């Protein structure tokens, strides 16, 4: 255990995970409060009819995207300064991202149960609707797994934008924004019901993703490609001290 704790990957993932969770809980705390207040004062809103797990899915994705953009270059610079290799830094930040995504799904699930508990004790009506991935209602576990996979795609592509801008400066860095918009748009659209497969006016009825496992496989493949591209950029990225 001591050997593990002294390994740079452990230190990096621990540091980044704690920071991610601190920021995430602050942001999500504010969103939960807004959700709760809207639930009391404004009933006529689709978002508040959703369960916490579903209502927080998009905010968590956006949070991880932004965290990826901000942290993309910051962590590289920070940990290189402490004598950590790019390889270890990359592994640590990736692991922390996976752990944060899983943790945030668990937090969202706990909030869902908590809202049901509050409903039983107070005059409050908790939202129950879930995101209908591929047009079907899914259980908690499947929803959590799909949410987590999609959130990781957001995180990786946010990270790509951050490191792309850092390494290739503004003009070429801008290509990474286009890439992220394109990939996230396609992947997001793919999880909608078949009737809504339309990305920027183009129909996406090319692949049959009506089956859960096919959509999941395509999402995972995108994730893997994103990670490989990220590592290719990261592994020899020069760092400027000033």
């Amino acid at each position, binding site marked *: 255990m001591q050997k593990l704790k002294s390994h740079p990957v452990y230190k990096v993932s621990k540091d980044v995970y704690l920071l991610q969770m601190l920021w995430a809980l602050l942001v999500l705390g504010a969103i939960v409060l807004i959700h709760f207040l809207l639930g009391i004062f404004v009933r006529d809103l689709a978002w508040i009819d959703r369960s916490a797990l579903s209502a927080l899915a998009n905010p968590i994705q956006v949070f991880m995207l932004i965290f990826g953009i901000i942290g993309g270059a910051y962590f590289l610079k920070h940990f290189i300064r*402490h*004598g950590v*290799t790019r*390889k270890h830094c990359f592994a640590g930040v990736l692991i922390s991202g996976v752990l944060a995504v899983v943790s945030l799904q668990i937090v969202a699930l706990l909030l869902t149960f908590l809202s049901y508990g509050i409903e039983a004790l107070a005059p409050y009506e908790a939202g129950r609707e879930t995101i209908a991935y591929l047009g079907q209602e899914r259980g908690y576990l499947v929803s959590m797994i799909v949410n987590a996979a999609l959130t990781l795609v957001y995180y990786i592509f946010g990270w790509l934008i951050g490191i792309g801008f850092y390494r290739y400066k503004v003009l070429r860095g801008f290509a990474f924004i286009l890439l992220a918009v394109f990939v996230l748009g396609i992947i997001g659209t793919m999880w909608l019901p078949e009737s809504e497969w339309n990305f920027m006016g183009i129909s996406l009825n090319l692949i049959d993703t009506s089956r859960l496992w096919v959509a999941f496989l395509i999402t995972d493949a995108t994730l893997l490609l994103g990670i490989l591209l990220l590592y290719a950029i990261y592994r020899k990225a020069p760092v400027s*001290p000033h």
Partner: protein
Amino acid sequence: MKTEARFQDIVLDYDEVRALDKVSCTLEEGKVYGLIGRNGAGKTSLLSLLASYREPSGGSLKVRDEAPFENAKIMKDIQFLYTYDMSEESETIEEYLKEVATFRERFDFEYAHTLLKRFGLNPKKKLNKLSTGMQSALLVVEGLASLSPITIFDEIHHGMDAPSRTTYYEAILESQRMHRRIIILSTHLVSEMAYLFDHVLILDRGKLLIDEPYDDVVERGVTITGAEKVVDDFTQGRTIIDTKTLGDTKAAMLYGSFTESDRKKAKEAGLQVSTVSLQELFIHLTKEDNHAKAEKPSGV
């Protein structure tokens, strides 16, 4: 194993610009190196390579006979310190040093606290509340207390007042006595820091002009003062890097071998011989037209 860093024909290109051009030198354990150069000379580039911030475009760099880039064993032993924006850092000095210690296995907390006290830094103070000079002092504490075998201070004295700079210089000497390692001081404050250097590296436009022990460098520089004609006769065939004339009196700054016999001859000719500081040598050797003279001084 002794720590040694060997640069062999190192080249570094940034797109079209050559930042380092065939730089070769060896850094040895137990020495304080003064890395001197004008703005844009390539100092930070050279240090960035040593700290694995980037890879060289050509040549070979070895630390303990291994390439340092992406080498976990080597990178953890090299500490590159430079001033950076701490305005977003809300942790306290104590927390910051604890974080540093998790990555630097030799970190000495007791020594760190001694240094903090000496610099008048309160461990409970937040980083973003520190003045520029205090931030620099904290970086000195970090660098010295980490006891890394290669410690690099890149223009760290920014914002430090004179007493803090003196504390910094004293701490460098004291630390080097206690824990022998390679310390590199990249600086513009040559006159103030020269006495700290065991060895001098002068970089100019990407080329290493001087790579010699401090004493040898300063011994090479002399100023000959006297009647203009006598000075001209005496300095004929020698490397002159600067001249000043006032009426009939001329002062010529020479760079190269200057023996006891030369000194005697100068005296006999009624000339005054005075030493030249490293600062003066640096200023004149890095002048556009003196570049070649520094590379091939007379009598060497």
